[in-house]
Structures are given as C-alpha cells and as structure tokens.
C-alpha cells in the first residue's frame, strides 16, 4: 500500500550534513583558508565580487569556499547576503583617468602618451601546463620598471575626442539619480545607466557569447580596443553633514573602452562611437564582452536597425543574470508531478481520439 512519503525534514537535514562533509573533502588534506583563496584564486574572487555586486574580497573568498568552487553558486551566496545590507549613500562617479594603473594597453595606436603597460597578463604566455607548479616553490621576483608609471594617464579616447572623431562622452554626473536594479525592476526602454548596471552584474559567459556573436556578423559594430586599463581608483562620497567629498575606499577595477566605427546618420556625422565595460578586480574578458554588448544595445539610439540578438534589449537584459537563470533552470528539479499528471490525462485523451479517427478512416477506406 502506497503511503505518502513523510520525513522530508530529516532527509534535508541529513543532506546538509553530507554536503558539509563533501565540501571539506579528505580531512587528511589541510583545509583551505580564506587568505589562500583571496591571494591565490584572485580572479575567481574578482568575478564573484563583480557578478555578486559586492566589493568585499574576504566575503567573496568565503562564498567560494562554501560553494566548493562553484562560482555561480558563490555569486548567489554573495547576492543573498548583499540584499540584507542597508544602502547608506550613492558614491561619486569613480575617476578612472586618475587610476593607479597596473596595466594599460591600447590597440588603436602603436604608442600612446604614458605608454603601453603590459602588467601581469596571460596574453603572451604559451598555454603549456607548468608541471613545476605541482610542487610548492617561489617564483623568481619580477624586476621593477626603470621609470614609475605617471600618476595620471589620460584616456586614449580623449585624444580622438579632441579631434571630433569620437562621439563626446556624456558628462560623468548630470545630477539625475542613477537607476538601481536591485531596488526597482527593469523597465523598457531601459536607460544606459540601468543597462550598464545589468551588464556589469551579468554572467560573464553569456556576455562573452553575445559579444562574440556581434563579431561574427550578428549585429557587427566594428570594434577596436581603444583602451583597456586595470588598477586602483578611489571611491568618494559626500556625507550630508560634511557637504564635501571624502575618500572611503580604494577599489580595483578593469575598464574597457571600445572605439567603434559609425557611418553616421541623418543627425550625426560619421564618427567613432563607444562601447563601455567595467568590472571589479581584473576581468578583461568580462569588461570587453560587456563593452561589445553595450555598443550593440546602443543600436536604437544610433539609428541602426536592430536585427540581432545582442541588439535586442529585452532579450539581452532579461537573460544576463546568472542567479535568476540558474535558479529557474534548476527549478525543474522540483516536483512537477501535478502538472505532469494534467499533461498525461490530456495526451492520453488526444491519443485515444487520434486512434478512434484513424479507425474510422480505415473503415471508410475498406
């Protein structure tokens, strides 16, 4: 005799215990520390902070440890924590021209004022597994540069802007309050501030694929990597009781400014246009993908025909969020047997009907 399954509560509790055990792995192997994750899995921490929308290396490291290295799960953990935090104020826009640069490259000019600064990059490494890393050991120290990097490196885009070849960037802060997707739902048409917030929080893999699709002809926007820079910037805010700006933190960011071809429209002369990407920490793939998609989404504003997925604002902005996407895809694991029963009843009835009409047809033919 079938009896409704009881004891879900105990099963869940046991599952959680088992999960903790599996997370820890072999107890003979020393446990990971947050410092190890923060220092040696830096790019994982950066991604979790970016898509988790919370700049806190230690909490991001904790999330990665708790999530057993599943970064999307870690992003979810950080988001769920972030949502409980009060919002005190809105900072001033960060000034990336004043960035303490650790890396800065431009693909549009051979040399730029301040120079090309490679910094630490995978770009020119040969992707050969380095078996020496299997053993502990200290790398040889890198030599310091002969000359220090200037305090202020003007953006490459300002050089083009001066000549009128590049569209002028809108003023950094025109006084209108910036949107916040974590407080207000997305509405269409979305303004660029909300779009950029959505893309910054968006899944790197999804944006990478969308950006890539524009390069393969689905909404091509002829991009050049005007500049990619990575380093530290100051975050400032104006406390109401003071009335002037104070620095509250230094954060590390990666910024990508794309320079894109534009043939001009009835309103605008031919000039280069922009796509913009920014993320926490060091994330060039993310910043570049974001910039490609940002530019693609500007199609309407620039009078271009929207015909490719990356140009479709609703398609892109509704599907970037991996916390939403992961939850909804995996909710298919929840029981659906009531819906399925309804479908079974329907499909059986439809099959019976099809069979009956087949018989009628067969008899008529005889």
């Amino acid at each position, binding site marked *: 005799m079938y009896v*409704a399954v009881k004891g879900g509560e105990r099963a*869940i509790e046991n599952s959680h215990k088992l999960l903790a055990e599996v997370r820890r792995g072999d107890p003979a192997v020393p446990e990971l520390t947050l410092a190890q994750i923060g220092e040696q899995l830096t790019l994982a921490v950066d991604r979790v902070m970016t898509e988790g929308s919370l700049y806190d290396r230690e909490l991001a490291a904790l999330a990665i440890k708790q999530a057993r290295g599943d970064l999307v799960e870690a992003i979810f953990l950080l988001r769920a924590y972030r*949502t*409980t935090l009060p919002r005190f104020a809105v900072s001033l826009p960060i000034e990336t021209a004043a960035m303490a640069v650790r890396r800065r490259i431009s693909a549009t000019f051979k040399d730029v004022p301040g120079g090309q600064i490679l910094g630490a990059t995978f770009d020119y490494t040969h992707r050969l597994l380095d078996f020496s890393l299997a053993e502990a050991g200290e790398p040889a120290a890198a030599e310091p540069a002969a000359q220090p990097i200037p305090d202020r490196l003007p953006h490459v885009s300002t050089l083009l802007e001066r000549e009128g070849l590049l569209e002028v960037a809108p003023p950094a802060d025109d006084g209108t309050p910036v949107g916040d997707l974590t407080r207000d739902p997305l509405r269409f048409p979305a303004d660029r501030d909300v779009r950029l917030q959505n893309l910054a929080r968006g899944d790197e893999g999804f944006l990478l694929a969308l950006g890539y699709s524009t390069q393969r002809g689905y909404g091509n926007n002829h991009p050049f990597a005007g500049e990619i820079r990575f380093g530290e910037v100051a975050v400032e805010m104006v406390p109401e009781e003071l009335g002037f700006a104070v620095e509250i933190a230094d954060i590390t960011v990666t910024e990508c400014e794309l320079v894109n071809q534009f043939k001009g429209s009835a309103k605008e002369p031919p000039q280069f246009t922009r796509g913009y990407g920014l993320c926490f920490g060091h994330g060039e793939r993310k910043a570049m993908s974001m910039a490609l998609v940002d530019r693609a989404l500007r199609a309407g504003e620039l009078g271009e025909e929207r015909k490719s997925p990356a140009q479709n604002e609703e398609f892109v902005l509704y599907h970037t969020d991996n916390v939403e996407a992961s939850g909804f895809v995996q909710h298919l694991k929840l029981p659906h047997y*009531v819906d399925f029963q309804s479908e079974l009843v*329907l499909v059986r009835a439809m099959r019976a009907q099809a069979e009956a009409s087949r018989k009628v047809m067969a008899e008529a033919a005889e």
Partner: protein
Amino acid sequence: MNAAAIDAKVEAGYNFAYLDEQTKRMIRRTILKAVAVPGYQVPFGSREMPLPFGWGTGGIQVTAGIIGPDDTLKVIDQGADDTTNAVSIRAFFAKTAGVATTDHTGAASIIQTRHRVPETPLREGQVIVFQVPIPEPLRMLEPSEVETRKIHALEEYGVLQVSLYEDIARHGRIAWAYNYPVVVNERYVMSPSPIPKFDNPKLNRNPALQLYGAGREKRIYAVPPYTPVRSVDFEDHPFKIESWDQPCAICGSTASFLDEVITDDRGSRMYVCSDTDYCADRVAEPRSAADD
C-alpha cells in the same frame, strides 16, 4: 504576543520574517495596488532571497510582507505538505518569523502554495499565496514584455483566442492542461500559475484573498475575495476539467485531483489524492469530507 515573546522565537540576527521593514512596506504597497486592479501584474522591487529564484521567492516575499506573529502558516507543493521545497519554505518562516505552522487547510491563516489549490474550500479571512514562475499568461505567445504590456493595456487578447482556436483546429480540443489562462473580473487575462486546470474553477468567487508572487520576474498580482474568475474558452468548446475513471486508492474520493503513482516496473499504477491533508482528513473522518 508581545515583542519580547516574538524576539525569543525568531532566529537571532534576522528581522522578523527575514526582510527589512522598508522592503516589507514596499511589498505591501504593491499588494494593495494589485488588489485594487484585480489580475493586473504590478512590478515590484523583488529582492534576492536566500532561496533560489524559481523556487518560490515571489511567494516567500509576499508571505513575508503580510505575515504577522499570530498567523498560522501552511506551505504546500504539488498539494503536499511533505515535499522537500515545501518543507524548506515552512522551515524558513518557522526560523525567521517564529510563527505557528500547520498541515491543516482549515487551521491556516496563510497558505503558500505551488501548483495546487487545496481541495478543502477556503473561507473568508484566509489568504492563499501562489508561487508564480512566469506571471505573463501570454509569454509563450509573445516573448516581448513591451508587447504583452500593450496587449493588456488595450485589452486586445486576439492572439490568445487565435492560439486556442488553432489548438481546436489541430487537435479537436484546447491542449492546455495546466497554467490555463483565466479572465479576472472580465478585464485582465491572468496566469493562475501552473495549477492544473482542475483547480481553475476554485479561483472563481473564492472567499479567500488570492495573492500571486513572481520573484524572478518581479511581479505581484491579486484576486480579491469573491471576484469572478473565468477560464478562457469558446461557446462550442466549453472549458472542461480533468477526470479520472477511478477513485483515490487511499480515501476513495472521486472529487479530488489524483496523482498517478507507479507501483512496479510492469506498468501497475494507482491513483491517490495530490492534496495529502484532504486525503488524511477523509481517512480519519470519512463522512466529514467535502465531496460526500
């Protein structure tokens, strides 16, 4: 219950029912608007909850917005109180709000549900909170939110009628088994959430307040008590609910939604009530059940 007694029962470090008071106020304002415009999907600033999107975050936020220390909560999934996600959501509120919980439909002041409406009729003063995955009833016919909002605003539901007509032309019937669209108060077409169409008639003029929460899609909508709710159909193809040719194998009910349970690998199966509380009640007191 006084404040100290509430504090003692609620998990340390959390606000009552998890969400901060500002957020709960925002949710209640949204609910008021939803009740004022029955069937209209009101956008709201849905938060990231500590449970995944798609797993009831909309329902959880609605429940968190309305629950008080004196409420009694019932949570069901597929009609059953013991399904894992229902257990998890019930535990969430027991922990963060310290409220009493129950399996009994009649004893609950708030019922949060996924995919079912209880068989036991609801009464005035009760609130039923539906977890909604896709709040837009026309989404599978028109993917663009900009377009569907226009359709609702202009009350131009031709696309839905055409789709149902195509079903009839192709299959001889409307091939929509669950999440079957309804018209609320003769104005808005609404998704009843993925309940089987068997449950649609229960929404009509129900004495309880129906609240629908879609967390990931950031929408709340409502059907106030005693509001007319009609399943979309045609005069010559009237709306019909599922039926089974055998009763529940446990309680013998012929009036409840039955789940098919496969009992061996040779095709044997049995049918039992999906609403476990209703079924258990009938076994305990066969004569008192609703369909006798």
